[in-house]
C-alpha cells in the first residue's frame, strides 16, 4: 500500500511540471493513471477483506483422528457377519459444540470366538455414499452406483469403486470395549489416503 502511495505521489508532482510545459496528452495520461490507481485501491479493500474471510476455511485443519469406543467386544456376535454401529463423539461445527453426537457409522465383524474384530468404514470409497448390507447378509452394496463388496470389505469386480472398503484401525481397550480409529479417506482414488 505505502509503495503505491509513494509511486502515486511522484506521478502527481510529475503532472504539475508536465502541466506547466503544456503537455496535454501527458497530463491526460497521468490523470487516467491516478484515477485507475485510486479507484483500484478503493475497490481492492472490500474485495480483499471479503476474500480474506472467504478463505478462512483453508486455515482450519481437520480434527485429529483418535480411537473412539464403539461397542463391547462381547456384545458383537461372533458369526462373521458385519454389524453396523454408530460412532459417537463430541463434534464442533463452526460455532456450535455438540456433545456426544453420532457422527457416522462403522461395520464391526467378529469371527467365531475371536478376541479381535475387523472394522470397516461405512463410507463408500467411490464417492462417499453410505454403504449398506444386503438384506440377505451375504455382501455389502452401495445404493448410489451399486458397488458390491464382500463381507470383509473386499472389492467385487467390476466395480465403480476404485478400492476395497476402508478398514479402520481397531483395538480392544482395557475394559473390553472395541475402539476404532475414526478417520476419513479420500474418495474416488485407488490409494487409501487419509483426508485432511
Amino acid at each position, binding site marked *: 500500500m505505502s509503495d503505491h502511495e509513494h509511486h502515486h505521489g511522484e506521478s502527481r508532482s510529475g503532472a504539475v511540471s508536465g502541466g506547466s510545459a503544456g503537455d496535454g496528452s501527458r497530463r*491526460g495520461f497521468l*490523470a*487516467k493513471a*491516478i*484515477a*485507475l*490507481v*485510486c*479507484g483500484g*485501491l*478503493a*475497490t481492492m*479493500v*472490500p*474485495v480483499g*477483506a*471479503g*476474500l*480474506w*474471510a*472467504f*478463505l*478462512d476455511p483453508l*486455515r482450519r485443519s481437520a480434527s485429529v483422528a483418535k480411537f473412539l469406543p464403539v461397542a463391547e467386544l462381547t456384545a458383537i456376535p461372533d458369526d462373521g457377519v458385519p454389524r453396523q454401529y454408530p460412532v459417537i463423539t*463430541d463434534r*464442533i461445527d*463452526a*460455532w*456450535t*459444540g*455438540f*456433545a456426544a453426537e453420532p457422527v457416522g457409522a462403522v461395520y464391526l465383524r467378529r469371527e467365531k470366538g475371536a478376541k479381535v474384530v475387523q472394522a470397516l468404514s461405512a463410507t463408500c470409497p467411490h464417492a462417499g455414499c453410505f454403504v449398506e448390507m444386503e438384506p440377505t447378509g451375504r455382501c455389502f452394496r452401495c445404493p448410489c452406483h451399486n458397488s458390491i463388496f464382500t463381507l470383509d470389505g473386499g472389492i467385487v469386480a467390476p466395480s465403480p469403486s476404485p478400492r476395497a472398503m476402508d478398514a479402520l484401525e481397531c483395538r480392544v481397550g482395557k475394559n473390553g470395549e472395541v475402539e476404532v480409529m475414526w478417520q476419513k479417506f479420500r474418495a474416488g482414488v485407488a490409494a487409501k489416503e487419509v483426508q485432511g
Partner: protein
Amino acid sequence: MSRDARQTAAAPARKGLVGQLGDFLDDRTGYRALVHEALYERVPGGARWRYVWGSTLVFAFMTQLITGLFLWASYSASAQTAWESVYYIQHEMAGGWLLRGIHHFMAQAMVVLLALHLLQVVIDGAYRAPREVNFWLGLVLMLLVLGMALTGYLLPWDQKGYWATIVATNLAGIVPFAGPSLQQLVIGGSEYGHHTLTRFFALHAGFLPGALILMLVVHLSLFRKHGLHAKQPITKPDAMFWPDQVLKDAVAMLAVMAVVLGVILMPALRAMLAGEAVVPGELGAELGAPADPSLPYAAARPEWYFLFLFQFLKVFEGWGATGEFFGAIVVPGLIMTVMFLMPILGNWRLGHRFNVAFTLAVLAGVGLLTSLALNEDYYALWVDKASLAEAEKLHDQTGGDPEKLAAALDNDTAKVAAMTNQWKKLERVRHSQAFLEASRQAKADAARAIELAGRPEKIPPAGMLELVRHDPKSQGPRLFAQHCASCHAHVDPLTVDAEAVIAKSSAANLYAFGSASWMQGLLDPAQVAGPAYFGNTAHKDGDMVNFVQNDLTDEATWPKADIAAVVAAMAAEAGTSPPKDLVGLVDIVGLVDRGRKLVASDDRCGGCHHFRDNSTALGSAPDLAGWGGREWLVGIITDPTHEQFYGDNNDRMPSFGKAAEGALPPLTREQIGLIADWLRGEWYRAEH
C-alpha cells in the same frame, strides 16, 4: 468477412494477443462503443468536486454489495444461529472483523453521502425539468437505503438490534388499518424469532437491494440521457467525464474508503501506541450480548442516523398512540411529500429558494434533534457534578417535594426558583447516568457473552442465550440484586464506597463469602458485631458475637495459631483457596487438619456447631461441615430455617427454595445454584 480475414492476417505483427482478443470481442459485442459512450460524456463547465457525491454513493453501494455477499457466505439467519454466526465472523474467522467493519461503517458513510448528494442536487436545482423523474427515483433510492440500514441492524440478533427493531416494528403497527397486519407480516408472525430474521434477511439482502439495483440502473441511465446538470454559471471550458471527472470521483471514493478504514483501525492504532495488545475481534462493528426478550435493555437506541426520529417521537410523548402516529408517520410523510413536490415547486424562482431553505431546515432539524438526543444520553459526562451536590442533598432531604423545598429555603422565591432549576438539571443528570450505566452493563454483558462463546466446548446447539442464562457470572449479580441485595451487601470492603453500602445493609456482606479473609473477619472481635457481619441482624447480641468478642480474645484458650488453623479449615470446607499468608506454608494440610479438630471439639466451635461426627446435634447453630461450599450455600438459600442452618433462630432470611403447597418457590433450584456459584466465584474464565 473480408475485414476479419484481413485482420487475422495482418494483426499478429502489430497487435498483441490482448488487442486481438479485444477486436474479436468488439466485433461481436460492440463493447468499445459502449465503453466510449460511458466514458466520453461531456461535463459542461469542466469536472468539479461537487459532482462526486453520486459516484461515491455508487461506490459505497458496490462496497456493500461485495462485503454483503461475502458476509452472506458465513451468516446464518435464525434465532439460534444469527448471533452465533456473527460472533464467528467477528471473532473467529480471519479477516471477519475487517469485512464486517467495512460493511457496518460503509452503511453509515452511505447515509452521510446520501445527505450530501441530496443537498448538492437541491442547491444546484438539478431536479428541474426534464430531470424530475430522476429526482423522484433518487428519493426512492434514499428510502431503500434507509430500509436496508433498518433491516440490517437486526441481523446480528444482539440486544441492541433486537430492541431497536421491536420499537421500529411497533411503530409500523400504528399505521391506520393496515398497521397490525403489516407488522405481523414483517415480523413473520406475532412473536419475534426465526421468521423475523429470515424475513429481515430476505429484505436486507434480496428485495431491497434488488429493487435498489433496478432503480439505480434507471437513475443512472436517466442521468446519462439528460446529461450532467452543470452548476451555473459556466466559466470554464467543458471537459470529458473520463478522465477528468473520473479522477475526482476516484479520489473521493478512495477518501471515503480511507475514512471507513480509519474508523475501524483507529482503536488498533491507539492500542499500539499505548503498548497494548490488539485483539482483532474488538475492531470494527461491535456485537452486543445475544438478544434476550426477558432482559430489560435500557440502553436501546437506534443507529445514530435514526436518533433524530427517536428524539422527535419524544416531542409527542404523552399524546399516546395519536402522538406517535403523528410523529412517526404524519410528519415524516409530510416531509417526504414536500420533497417529492420539489421539482414542481422549483419551476418558480421562489419555489427553488423554498426548496433549498426547506432541505437545509430539515437537515438542521435532524442535526438539532440528534444533538439533543446525544445530550440527553451523555449529559452526565459533561456536566459539573460538584455544582449539583447542594441540590442533590436538598433533593434527598425533601424527597423532591416543592413545598418542603420552599420551607427549607425560608420561602425565598429567588432561591426556590434557582434550586428548582438545579433540580431539573439533577433530574437530567440522573436520567443520563441511568443510560450510561445501562450502556456499561450492556458492554459488560457483550464482553461476557463473547468470552463464553470462545470456550473450547463452543456454543451449545440451543444457542448462546442458553449459555448466558446458565452462566453464574452473568446471572448471579442480577439474581442477587433482585432477591438478596435488599438485605445483604456484596461489595469488596477495600473499594471506595464500600463502607456506605455496608452500613445501609441489614445482613452480612457476602463479598468473598467462603474465603479465608471472610472467615478472618467473622472471627475478628472488632468486626463480628459490625455491619459487615452480624451488626445489623438479630444475631448482633447472639452467642456467636459473644463468643468471638469474649472467648476468642482470651489468648490462653485461643492462641492466634489456633484461630488461623480454624480459618484455614473453614476455607478448606468451602473449597476455596487457602489464605494468602498461608500459601507456601509447608504444613498447610497439617494446619487444616488441626483446624478441623478444633472446629469439631466440644470446648471450641463444636460446643454449639455440629461438625461431621462430633457430639453436638444439629439445630443449635449452622452445621459447619462443607460450610461455604456449593451444597451448603444452596441449602441455606433454599431454607435457612432447616435445622442444618439457623433453625428457629433464623433472623429474617426467606426460604427461597421452599413454597407453600401449590405455589412456586421464589427461586428455582437452578437459580439458587447460580447465586451460589457466583458467590463462590465459580464460573468459566478464558485463559489468556
